[in-house]
């Protein structure tokens, strides 16, 4: 039994960025993320975008591409669409930058602008404001980034009819250079739009199902991680 259709994909990786329907193939290579501007992503200058930290820009861009791919980027009234984002390092780079403003004068000149972005879910607030999304929006921290737990929760929310549309994905800017820790995460973000009942069936990349154990299937085959799911969705288009 189908739980949801994937109707949009958006991503930013070191090699490419954009909407699922703009690509027929994907290459997976490591590297540095591009410097993101709102004009590059949305075709216009968004004053707030420039104020965001790198992690937030990354998530904002990928969710924006995903919503555009699903034809959900334009809105008049706010909509009950939820977003679940998985991450390992989250806003750690901003935490480090913020604490540098605390140390010199015992907190007297701590930056309120930076502090506001020291919670990893705050970028979801920016996304909600820009795209008028009023569903559940939160972050999941995983020891290693697969994004499956977040996808599972998003599907569960659809099963229990808490939203009719959910976005699920991951967003990670990678390990900050100054932070010594033995877990490496390839920087990037990818989000999927999951619709219980797609408004336009032609937008579907395929259907997702989940068994009682929480194992997720895309077009009948098990989903191992979100990178793999993205590759399979793009491959569907090239057939």
């Amino acid at each position: 039994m189908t739980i949801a259709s994937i109707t949009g994909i958006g991503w930013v990786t070191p090699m490419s960025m954009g909407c699922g329907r703009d690509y027929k193939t994907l290459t997976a290579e490591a590297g540095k993320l591009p410097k993101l501007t709102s004009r590059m992503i949305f075709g216009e200058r968004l004053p707030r975008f420039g104020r965001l930290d790198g992690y937030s820009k990354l998530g904002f861009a990928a969710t924006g591409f995903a919503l555009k791919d699903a034809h959900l980027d334009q809105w008049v009234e706010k909509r009950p669409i939820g977003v679940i984002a998985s991450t390992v390092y989250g806003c750690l780079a901003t935490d480090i930058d913020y604490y540098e403003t605390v140390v010199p004068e015992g907190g007297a000149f701590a930056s309120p602008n930076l502090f506001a972005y020291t919670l990893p879910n705050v970028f979801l607030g920016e996304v909600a404001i820009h795209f008028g999304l009023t569903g559940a929006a939160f972050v999941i921290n995983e020891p290693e980034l697969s994004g499956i737990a977040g996808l599972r929760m998003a599907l569960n929310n659809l099963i229990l009819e808490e939203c009719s549309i959910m976005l699920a994905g991951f967003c990670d800017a990678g390990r900050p250079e100054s932070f010594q820790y033995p877990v490496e995460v390839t920087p990037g973000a990818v989000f999927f739009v999951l619709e219980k009942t797609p408004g336009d069936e032609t937008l579907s990349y395929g259907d997702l199902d989940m068994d009682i154990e929480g194992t997720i299937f895309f077009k009948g085959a098990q989903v191992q991680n979100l990178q793999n799911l993205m590759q399979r969705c793009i491959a569907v288009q090239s057939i």
Partner: protein
Amino acid sequence: MEIRRAEIKKVCIVDTAVVTALGNTLQDTWKRLIKGDSGIGPIKRFPVGTYDSRIAATVDDLRPIQDRSIIYDLIGRLLAGLKDIPQDTALITATTKLGIDNLENIRRKKAARAGDVLPSSMPEMVSGKLGLKKAGINVSASCASSTIAIAQGSAMIASGQADAVLVCCADIVTEFTFSGFSSLKIVSPVPCRPFDKERSGLTLGDGAAALFLMSDERAIQEGRKCMATIKGWGIANDAFHITSPAQDGSGLASAIEMALVRGGLQHEHISAISAHGTGTMYNDLMELTAFNKVFCGRKLPVYSVKGATGHTVGASGGIEVALATETLAAQTVPPTAGFQNPEEGAEGMISSKPVYLKGDYLLTTNSGFGGINAAILLERGTNL
């Protein structure tokens, strides 16, 4: 996987543990809460000379164990209060900054385990200590983190994906968080006064809670007592501002309405509200507006524990749900410490004294940065 409404499983809270500035157990915290005590006092953990406020509700004897963050001492005490957690239990933790004191220590060239800074370390630590088969995940949603963790744990049980879920939450007061909230000018120089017309901001606090959730079927099978039932939950974003709530209360009102629908209840069924009640100007006003909207102007008892426990950020929802099980069991609404004169619109709802409660259903709410709002609807425990 299609779930019909009739198949949705009942979610029971079968065990709880709490550590706050009021005490190392739920019972100790509850007893002092009912007496109107407050755990707020001078901060001794880090220098506060440059700040307008110098107080918080800290658990003062928390110590770093070797190179670990002090939050591990807090979590260790919390887990000591739990017993008989089966190995197949699923785990969801909730924290905003976990061991962020270790980021401070790293910056100051002190011995510090880097992993403690990452919220994903919390499920690993809890799972390891309890010997659970699966590591679990952490939910981060600012001050609604643990409320959402409870909602997601409940959803897992309701849909049949799990029949036992442990939710653990914790956050601590550090120079990092204290300086940040101070920089936003929302920390009160005096102990916070939720819903009071003289309120001047929040007071931070250390805190941790654990809630062990089970399907009623498994709880019966294992002979566990149902302390309370999670009847409903709701999560909504107000899509308004990243650090200020929408003043029309629309996000919180939506979350409450979702919880009522999930629970199959009308607003008339609700007997009391455990509010977020931070003591900031914007939060308390927004909450009163949302309550007024959903409850159609009905004056029901509303309380906030933050004048006693401080604002424990990501742990606040979990602590408040655990205390709400006591509120329902004792049929007593605890006093709101620090409250004296009601904010406009709060007249007849808040009390500085314990109030008799007659009813079986209680709502708890939390809201946070990023525009997030969450509500949990509890039913008084029954014999299974």
